[in-house]
């Protein structure tokens, strides 16, 4: 523990523990009544259960914070999962959410991030938090999300009758581990700390005073705070294990008490030690022989909200650049004349900008030429390495079928793509190739019109290898005339990185000229 944290801990320690006001004795009200839903009591917990003590400790911490730190308890939200501990939320007169098994932490994540003003506390059992919800625990800790997680650990699944769980000590007994637990339990403080929690502690319910103090600190803590409370399960766990075995099965209160005595015997306070050393030791018959207790970690680190908020300025810049592009956009006259359904297949290899070329055509047609345009791309294994393909359909009328049925126009920039797609081109269709990348075989189709330019070379000569696709776009625009030249230019200018706009437009122009020349011939 840092010196600062030690000092804070000491300050809290010497503050007086709240005693009930005189008036409460007179009215007969329990001092905690205002934070309990009286109409829901009595609670469902067994006699001798440790949950009552855990609840009392939590409430007194809140009352202390209300009185001494000005906490507005209307802004406190408690979230529980399922299980005996999960019922705590329902007894508290606070905003309280009883969620599904294991999912209290993600629910709390939503509450807290959506409204950082709320003080959000998760109270649930070990099965809920470390078993079914274990993944959520480690990730909330990793984010240093500003919530408090109080995990009441009774070493088993109590509500369902005492099954073995992720915290059941090795060799201890449970309904589903009657020959002794052959698994090993989590050390919860170590798990939380290793995952990124910035405040970590453990107490048994016997150490109620210490627990109160620790809870106050955990609740004030700005990052992710984790408190494990070890508590007797008089009905289930104590029945099977040395701590409560051999006692009258009817006398649950006695059993709970025996477990508390046991805690007194085996509890060992070791403030500030590394959470790794915060053992729950057992002997060979599964009897707990040492429980290390205390506050193990108290660090100040930026919490999740701060981390998110730091990004706001960058986000605004992103938005402004997108908005400026929209505002700058020129309005061009719509394309003259009707465009029948035109299907364009583009193909090449990864990195040639086959997708962006298709998108540029689509945008030119739809945004600048007021045509209908639909751009789709081939996903799946074939899109990784090998041939990359993208498709655009353009038409003056609505495009019902988004896929190509019979492409009329093709732009092929690799041998592989040529081989893959050329057979699909409809008779009389136009094939445009980068003629340095595609070698037409002797049996090349004669029923289609084929034109080639050295697009990659043109781009290289202009000083930007990556603009080969733009050369092909210029070429395509000239040969096909489906989309207006100016529409294509605007679409390119809007789509390529700002620094490369002029070079791309130059390359487009070269491709366009070559196209015109070829068509004239």
């Amino acid at each position: 523990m840092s010196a600062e944290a030690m000092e804070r801990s000491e300050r809290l320690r010497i503050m007086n523990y709240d005693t009930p006001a005189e008036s409460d004795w007179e009215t007969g009200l329990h001092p905690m009544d205002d934070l309990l839903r009286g109409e829901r009591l009595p609670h469902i917990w067994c006699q001798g259960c440790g949950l009552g003590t855990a609840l009392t400790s939590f409430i007194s911490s809140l009352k202390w914070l209300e009185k001494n730190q000005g906490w507005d308890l209307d802004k406190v939200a408690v979230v529980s999962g399922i299980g005996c501990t999960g019922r705590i939320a329902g007894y508290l007169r606070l905003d309280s959410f009883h969620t599904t098994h294991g999912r209290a932490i993600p629910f709390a994540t939503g509450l807290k991030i959506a409204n950082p003003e709320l003080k959000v506390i998760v109270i649930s059992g070990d099965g809920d938090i470390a078993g079914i919800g274990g993944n959520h625990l480690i990730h909330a800790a990793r984010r240093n999300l500003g919530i408090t997680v109080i995990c009441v650990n009774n070493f088993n699944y109590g509500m369902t009758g005492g099954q073995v769980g992720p915290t059941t000590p090795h060799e201890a007994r449970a309904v589903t581990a009657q020959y002794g637990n052959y698994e090993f339990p989590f050390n919860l403080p170590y798990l939380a700390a290793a995952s990124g929690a910035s405040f970590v502690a453990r107490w048994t319910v016997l150490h109620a005073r210490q627990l109160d103090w620790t809870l106050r600190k955990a609740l004030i803590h700005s990052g992710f705070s984790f408190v494990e409370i070890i508590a007797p399960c008089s009905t289930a766990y104590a029945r099977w294990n040395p701590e409560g075995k051999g006692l009258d099965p009817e006398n649950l209160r006695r059993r709970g008490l025996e477990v508390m005595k046991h805690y007194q015997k085996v509890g060992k306070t070791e403030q500030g030690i590394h959470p790794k050393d915060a053992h729950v030791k057992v002997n060979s018959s599964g009897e707990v022989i040492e429980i290390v207790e205390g506050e193990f970690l108290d660090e100040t680190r930026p919490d999740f909200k701060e981390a998110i908020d730091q990004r706001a300025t960058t986000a605004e810049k992103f938005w402004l650049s997108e908005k400026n592009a929209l505002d700058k956009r020129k309005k061009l006259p719509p394309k003259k004349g009707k465009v029948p359904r035109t299907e364009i297949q583009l193909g090449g290899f990864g990195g040639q900008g086959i997708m962006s070329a298709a998108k540029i055509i689509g945008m030119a047609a739809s945004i600048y030429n007021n045509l209908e345009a639909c751009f789709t791309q081939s996903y799946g294994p074939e899109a990784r390495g090998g041939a990359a393909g993208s498709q655009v359909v353009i038409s003056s009328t609505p495009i019902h079928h988004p896929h190509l049925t019979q492409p009329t126009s093709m732009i092929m920039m690799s041998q592989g793509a040529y081989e893959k797609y050329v057979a699909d081109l409809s008779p009389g269709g136009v094939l445009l190739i980068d003629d340095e990348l595609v070698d037409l075989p002797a049996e090349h189709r004669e029923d289609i019109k084929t034109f080639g330019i050295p697009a990659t070379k043109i781009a290289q000569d202009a000083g930007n290898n990556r603009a080969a696709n733009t050369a092909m776009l210029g070429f395509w625009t000239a040969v096909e005339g489906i989309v207006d030249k100016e529409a294509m230019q605007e679409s390119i200018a809007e789509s390529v990185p700002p620094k490369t706009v002029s070079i791309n437009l130059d390359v487009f122009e070269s491709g366009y000229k070559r196209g015109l020349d070829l068509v004239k011939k």
Partner: protein
Amino acid sequence: MSKEKGRLTGEHFMLGDHACAEGAILAGCRFFAGYPITPATEIAERMSVRLPQVDGKYVQMEDELASMNAILGASWAGVKSMTATSGPGFSLMMENLGLGIMLETPCVLVNVQRGGPSTGLPTLVGQQDMMQAKWGSHGDYEIIALSPGSPQELFDLTIRAFNLSEKYRTPVLVMTDAEVGHMTEKVVIPPPEEIEILNRPQIYKGDVEPDHFRIYRESPDGDPGYVSPMVKAGEGYRIHVTGLTHDERGYPAMNAEANEWNVSRLMEKITANLDDIIELETDKLRNAEVVVVSYGISARTSLWPIEQARKEGIKVGYLRLITVWPFPEDTISKLATKVGAFVVPEINMGQITREVERCAAGNAQVFGVHKPGGDILDPGDVLDTIRKAAAVTQKN
């Protein structure tokens, strides 16, 4: 300036998934929790860029269980929230979709459907989760599910999904698919002033005596379609909500009467408002011999075969389920007495086809055009089925 912040009003050549995110932003969504999954990932990507621009929050959760729960938590903090996923993630969300329904929590869940079952076809289209959308979470409930056929409609229906979820205080599903999600077309983002945005009925601090406050009120005038106002966390009402069967106060009530009260209100707020919730697009239903009933991408790709069939002289009607759930039972039952046959194209082995059959109740024949995931339907198959249906009709 502040009103302008984050606006992208105008025409875009936009990916379907991104259009979904833009619809959400315009609808007022300010919290997104999600987990990457093809083909829904681009919704999360776009939200992660856009939300911080409008003072919203994006969180990438550890899994889909957490994503679904986080959006419920955010909604109870008073913030409109959404998540997006596909098949496997949709399955993981089912548990807490149920929690959302039980707690009466407005939020939107988008499923960009891919081919299943299991990991199935991550990058390729399917409409195989339509019945899961209806029945996927355990227990009895009603659900609202919308099905768009283009990026523009994905944008529009995401807004409508938010409006319905706010109005009826319930999670709403947008059941789109890989084809629409991964398609790029023109999307017009109108100025926010031109869009109707609904917000949940809500009670704020001081509106009601906390002692008289009921989190799940019944209608004061016996309206079964009544939706109780919501109270967010932090308003001083010290609310309690639970996934357990509960009473008006939100307190657990463990008996059959309570379950009946609880389940009825979840169902009736939908079933008593069908006219408002169900949205259909129809064309030439009058005098139709054959009616094509479809939704989403399959409805769109049926338009060409319908045109062809009409050219061949077959009287084909068209009924597109913009709202798939709740199902337009009355419309289909009435139509069944007037038309000869229904043709139901969908990219699955016959899910909505069964609903049409159930509602047609033997009064009209039902022909499905089915294939499992991987590709949109072949227009030729749809055309052939329309011809077949017409032949049967004419014989009768």
